[in-house]
C-alpha cells in the first residue's frame, strides 16, 4: 500500500466511515436535500433543523463510498451550530481545498475547522475521487437554498 493511498485513507477517515457521526434522519426537518453521483452511485440525503439562521441539527443518510461517507460525517460535525453564512464559507473553503493547487481559504478558518477539513486535502491527488468528497457539501449547499433539486456532482 503506497504512501499516497495511506494519506487518503488515514485513520480518521476510516473511523468516520466505520462510525459515522450524525447518521440518520431528523423527524421534522426544516430543510433537506438529496445528493447523487450517478457515475459511481454515491447517494446521500441530508435533513436539517435550521432556526434563526443557525443550523441547530443535521443528519445524513445514504449509500456511498468511504470518502463520501467520511466527508459527510465530518461535515455534519463541523456545520452543526454554525450560521448559514459560516456554512457557506466552510463550503467554499472545502471546495477550494479539493480543487485548487494552492488553497488559501482553508487556512483562514478557525483552527478546529481547519484541522477537520484538512484531513481531506489528499483527495485532490485523486481527481476522480474529488466528487466523492464534495457531494455532501454540494448537497448541503442545495439544502440551505432549500432547493428541492437533487444535487449532482457530475
Amino acid at each position, binding site marked *: 500500500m*503506497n504512501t499516497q*493511498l495511506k494519506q487518503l*485513507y488515514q485513520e480518521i477517515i476510516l473511523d468516520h466511515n466505520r462510525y459515522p457521526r450524525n447518521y440518520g434522519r431528523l423527524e421534522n426537518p426544516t430543510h433537506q436535500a438529496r445528493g447523487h453521483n450517478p457515475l*459511481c*452511485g454515491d447517494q446521500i440525503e441530508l435533513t436539517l433543523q435550521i432556526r434563526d439562521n443557525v443550523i441547530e441539527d443535521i443528519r445524513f443518510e445514504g449509500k456511498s463510498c*468511504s470518502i463520501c461517507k467520511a466527508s459527510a460525517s465530518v461535515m455534519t460535525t463541523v456545520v452543526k451550530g454554525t450560521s448559514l453564512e459560516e456554512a457557506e464559507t466552510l463550503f467554499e473553503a472545502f471546495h477550494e481545498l479539493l480543487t485548487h493547487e494552492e488553497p488559501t481559504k482553508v487556512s483562514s478558518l478557525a483552527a478546529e475547522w481547519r484541522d477537520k477539513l484538512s484531513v481531506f486535502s489528499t483527495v485532490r491527488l485523486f481527481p*476522480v*475521487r474529488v466528487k*466523492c468528497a464534495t457531494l455532501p457539501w454540494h448537497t448541503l449547499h442545495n439544502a440551505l437554498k432549500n432547493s428541492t433539486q437533487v444535487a449532482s456532482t457530475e
Partner: protein
Amino acid sequence: MKDLVQRAERLRADFPLLHQRHPSGSPLIYLDNAATTHKPRAVLQTLERFYTTTNANIHRGLHWLSQEATRLYEEAREVVAQFLQAASPQEIVFVKGTTEGINLIAHGLRQVHFQPGDELLLTAAEHHANIVPWHLIARDIPVRLRPAPLRSDGGLDWEAFQQQITPRTRLIAITAMSNALGTEMPVSAIGALARQRDIPFLVDAAQFAPHKPINVQEWCADFVVFSGHKLYGPTGIGVVYMRHPWGETLPPYQGGGDMIVEVRWDSSTYAKPPQKFEAGTPPIAEAIALAESIRYLTQKVGWDFIQAYEQYLTDYAQARIEEVPGLQLFGTARPKGAIWSFYSEAVHPHDMATFLDQAGIAARAGHHCAQPLMEALQVPATTRASLAFYNLPSEIDSLAQSLHQIVHFFV
C-alpha cells in the same frame, strides 16, 4: 493449461499497451476489457497504412485513391458479413458503435413498426444502450419496456421470460451477454421463439462478440449490433446487421451525401441498403481497421484458443475471487463470458477501484451502464474485472491478492 497460458503470453507481444507500467511503478494489469479492449499492432498498422497510402473519400471518386479506399471499405463490409454469417454484405451497416446502432434501429422501427402501447421484451440485464433509445422514441410513440427477470445466479429466468410475451410484444431486444455479469442469454432459443411468433428480434452483441463466434442465422436475429473498440478494433466504428428485407423496410436514419438517389429542394429519394443508412463520410479508416481486427481475432488468435483459454481464465478467476472473505460474486450461471462482478458490504466499489488502481490494476467500479440491473441486485454498484485472451492467471493472482489486502484493510 500450460500451453494455453504460453500462447497467451506470446500473443501479448502483439499489444504494445500491455507492456506499460502504472505511475505507481507496478506493472499495468488491465482488467477492464468489457469497457474497451486494446489494439493489436496489426490493427494499428492497418490504420497507419490506410492513412499513408490509400486515404481518400469513398464511393464518389473516379480517381485511383478513391477507388482503392472504396474497395477496402467494401471489403471490410464483406469481412464483417462473414464474421456474422450474414447472407450478404448488403445486410451490414457501418455506424459509430453499438449505441448508435440501436438508436438507428429504434428510429426506424418508430416510423414503420410500433404502435402506441406496444411492448418490448428485454432482459433485466440490459445496458443503457438497449434501454434509453426506446425511451427516446417513446416520446413520439409510447411503447412499454418489459424486462424479464434474472435468476439469482444471473442467468435468464426462462419461464418468466416466456410468460412476458404478450400479443402486444412487438420487439424482443436482448443483450447476448451481460456486460455487468458476463452471463450469456439463451439467444438461439429466444430467436426461435421470436421467429415462431413473428416478432422482430434484436441482439446487442457488444459483449458477446469478443468472446464467442456469432451466427446470425442460428440466432434467428433480425438485428445484431456490436462495437469495434470492444473487439480489439478502433473507436468510432460499430456494426448493425439488418436481416433482409429490414434494410428495405426501415426508413433512413440520417440524411446527407451518399445515401440518396436524387435530391431536390422539396424532397429526396434514397439509395438501397446499406448506403441508405450511411449518410455522409463514414468512419472509413475505422471500418477498414475493424476488418483487420476481425482477421486478427479469427485467423491469428482463433476461436478455439479464445474459447478454451477464456473458459480457463473464467474458472480460475472465480476460484481465486471466491477465496476472498466477504466478497459476493454475481453472475455464476453458465455459460458465461470472462467477466466477474463482485461486491463487499465492507468496501464500497469506489474505494476498491482506487485501491486496485494504486496496485496497477485497472478494474471498473460503478453501475456499468446498467442501473436497473444494479437495483435488481440491490447494490449501489459493483467492481468488475473483465478479461481478454491476453490476460494471464498471474494477473488474476495479483487481483486476488489485492482484494485480500483491501478487505483486510477495511474490515
